[in-house]
């Protein structure tokens, strides 16, 4: 067995040192009825590397990769180009095969990258501080809601109708389990501002998204003002981190907490995970934050160094009184984010964001020219929704036959709404003029 270094002679010698007859001796506490005679039945034996590679490659070949043709799916995960050097950095053994940096003397590599990550996320969102990452955007959103309830000692959370429905579901689940009330405003393409009307004296926070699930970008400053007037918090959500290079970031709108998905920068699509949740807030809320934080300090020689800090918020110290049950962050994905962000810099990020917006504008122009197609997203970054004269599911299936993966039907995201004719599509820097032409041509044939 290629991963097991012990030889039979080793095992015998070790058993002798221990004074045991066989490995069975160690399992003496297992109840009789739960002892297996041999290995678990119904499962195959070990295989060589070649056989495993063949089997998995066969499964992989049954999937259509986003790079294999015109591809326009977004809705919370985006197809962006990842520089080769980013993947090389995260495959370095020293980052890949290490643990949470609880022993800072031999983890300064991880800790310094987390410190850089926190600084980058704070700058990107225009917030005071950021943590060292969450599982993903949806769980970050749920944690923000319960954090807001802790901070305000109120029990009502209001979600916009443009919030990603998976984020809304994850947030509702965690809140309701804790006895918190969740009000979900009616689903709307351009309805984020309704939060300003809905906030009241019982509200802990309002949660709005820009760009929202339909791609609509909105300056939510008035929502923040309305929330603050009622002493509630404003949680600003995004699912497309690249957008923040161009559109108004949470901090400029007066957000108290900013949460979002960082996948777009450095992390592959990977069928939905692992991704990296971004979580930032104002300075005064930092001690109520969930998740890990990395801070600067000095070592015994007075040299600058970094450590995990404020851990008295966390479960391994506070147990049932912790701010969250979270034990891991998304360390390696955070590193990918940081390495990619470091390649981009401010200029690269802004150019990348512009290229995304321009590709989406070109796509909108091309699709709008198809008779019967109506773009319903009024203002957008790199994603928008459009209405077709036919059932969206049928349109997407026919586009698929033409080799175009045309987007996500709104009815998959909102099964209870009557949105059977709406498709949400995204374009990025990976989208070529040929891809757009192929989409428009195929759509014209269909509708």
């Amino acid at each position: 067995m290629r991963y097991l270094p012990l030889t039979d002679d080793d095992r015998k010698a070790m058993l002798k040192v221990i004074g045991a007859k066989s490995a069975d001796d160690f399992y003496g506490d297992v109840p009789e009825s739960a002892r297996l005679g041999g290995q678990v039945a119904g499962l195959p034996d070990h295989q060589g590397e070649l056989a495993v590679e063949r089997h998995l490659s066969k499964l992989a070949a049954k999937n259509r990769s986003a790079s294999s043709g015109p591809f326009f799916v977004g809705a919370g995960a985006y197809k962006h180009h990842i520089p080769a050097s980013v993947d090389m950095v995260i495959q370095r053994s020293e980052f890949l095969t290490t643990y949470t940096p609880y022993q800072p003397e031999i983890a300064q590599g991880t800790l310094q990258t987390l410190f850089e990550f926190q600084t980058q996320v704070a700058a990107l969102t225009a917030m005071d501080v950021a943590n060292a990452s969450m599982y993903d955007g949806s769980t970050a959103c749920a944690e923000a809601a319960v954090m807001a309830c802790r901070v305000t000692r109120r029990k009502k959370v209001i979600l916009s109708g443009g919030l990603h429905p998976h984020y809304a579901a994850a947030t509702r689940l965690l809140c309701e389990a804790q006895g918190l009330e969740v009000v979900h405003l009616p689903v709307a393409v351009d309805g984020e501002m309704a939060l300003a009307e809905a906030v009241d004296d019982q509200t802990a926070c309002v949660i709005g998204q820009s760009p929202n699930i339909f791609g609509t970008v909105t300056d939510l400053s008035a929502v923040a003002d309305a929330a603050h007037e009622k002493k509630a918090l404003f949680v600003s959500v995004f699912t497309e981190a690249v957008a923040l290079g161009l559109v108004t970031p949470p901090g400029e709108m007066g957000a108290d907490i900013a949460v979002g998905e960082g996948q777009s920068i450095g992390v592959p699509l990977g069928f939905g995970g692992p991704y990296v949740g971004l979580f930032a807030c104002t300075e005064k809320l930092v001690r109520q934050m969930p998740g890990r934080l990395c801070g600067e300090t000095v070592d015994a020689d007075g040299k600058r160094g970094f450590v995990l800090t404020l851990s008295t918020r966390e479960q391994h110290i506070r147990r049932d009184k912790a701010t969250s049950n979270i034990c891991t962050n998304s360390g390696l994905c955070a590193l990918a984010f940081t390495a990619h962000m470091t390649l981009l810099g401010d200029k690269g990020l802004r150019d990348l964001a512009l290229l995304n917006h321009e590709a989406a504008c070109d796509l909108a122009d091309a699709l709008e020219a198809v008779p019967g197609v109506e773009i319903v997203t009024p203002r957008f970054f790199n994603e928008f929704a459009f209405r077709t004269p036919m059932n969206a599911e049928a349109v997407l299936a026919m586009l698929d036959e033409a080799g175009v993966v045309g987007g996500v039907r709104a009815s998959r995201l909102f099964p209870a709404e009557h949105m059977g004719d709406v498709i949400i599509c995204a374009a990025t820097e990976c989208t070529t003029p040929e891809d757009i032409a192929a989409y428009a041509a195929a759509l014209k044939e269909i509708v």
Partner: protein
Amino acid sequence: MTMNTQGRPTAPTSTSVSDIETVSGSRGLLQAEGLIFEIGTSETTGVDLPAPKNRTGRLGGVARKVPTGLPGLSEPEMVRHYMRLSQRNYAIDLGFFPLGSCTMKHNPRLNEKMARLPGFGDIHPMQPQATVQGALELIDELATWLKTLTNMPFVAMSPKAGAHGELAGMLAIRQALIARGEGETRKRVLVPASAHGTNPATAVQCGFEVDEIKANARGRVDMDMLRAKLERTDDVAGIMLTNPNTCGLFETDIKEIADLIHAAGGYFYCDGANFNAIVGRVRPGDLGVDAMHINLHKTFSTPHGGGGPGSGPTVLSQALAPYAPVPFVVKNEDGVYSLVEDMDGEASESFGRMVAFHGQMGMFVRALAYILSHGADGLKQVAEDAVLNANYIAAKLKHVMTPAFEGYCMHEALFSDAFTADGIETLDIAKALIDEGYHPMTMYFPLVVHGAMLIEPTETESKATLDQFCASLESIARRAAQGDETLKGAPYLAPARRLDETRAARKPVLKWTAPEGETVAAE
């Protein structure tokens, strides 16, 4: 004798390394390296993008006002930056990492290669299901392995990490109680004092109250206390128990515990963090478990990545399966795989959705590659070798350190600090191990053992490695017993000395800020 390039022997000198100052701040191969904010500029970029046309027409004026100011680096600078930082990290690929309860085993590179196949790495979670049949099949295949290895009928694949899996299990219990009409009355969850901190934190996140049970002198659940706690039954939601437990011991009375909790009308959540000790040898479903998360990053060797991402599929009993979270994969009669995403039909009793999309696919690929490589025979050997290695360490060190409990351990050996002289702490022993070239063991956990030192070798270490480690630790333990004060200063040979954590917490500095008068330092 070392030779220089002219072939002349170099002369030994008597200068101590600590006396040598360098202009650069580097120390030989250990290069000095600042933060990116100190070495990059906001005009530098390491990507070559086409020039944008600066069209912002459809943004509707919702535009960023203040630039991020973030610095960029060219590719060679970026690569060198992170390579230099990497040299300050300890890693499994570099050496022995006996961190108890964390299962730091070798991460096969085949798994990395498989996860990067475009058919897995470059597919979108919301693209049409007809175009991702291989991905759904892979999830189903891994699910089948997990269900069979645990003898449980259902597995929720979407939890993002171990603690998230705990949340899945406890939310399923909550939903089952609601379905029974007892959601408001059954709020008490029993949790041993030795549990991982995530257990009580998770219970509270789900609206439960934690009732702590103590360990007995053998490191197992105190059954008398448990029975006493279960005298009142109408408020009992369940128990959260780690098995093998955090003391590295199999819970001898586990079946009786399961029976007692079921008789009380509660459910049995088993924390599967230590599954590595029993995988392929004991099936938790045979022990009366109702829910158990499996840390793919522990037992099935997906890389820890400096603290995540993890993955925490959670197996559920027949009693809890109807309440499992969406989405999940089903195989239809025609052989087509589909995702159940909506809470109707077979998911009508589901407790809901925990997360966007379908779970940690990248970890599923790696875990399945690991599982197929081992097979049922190899996984059994994994557990046996992990347990053998731990007992070997326990046997070699019991004469110089203080075993916390008598008898054989499972996959990790636990010692208390009773053998140390006054003034020498577990922390000092841990830090001295760093100078010996090892990652320290887990320290001060579990909380039920004073100055706990928890050593988990895993099955991927050779006998020679264990022998060398035991020799190092034995020497340190003897120094600790003699009160050797030099231990207080360890580590001496690491990239950094002990760090001032008090200072970090008192006035937190959580991001880089430009020195006054500068926005980006290198501008």
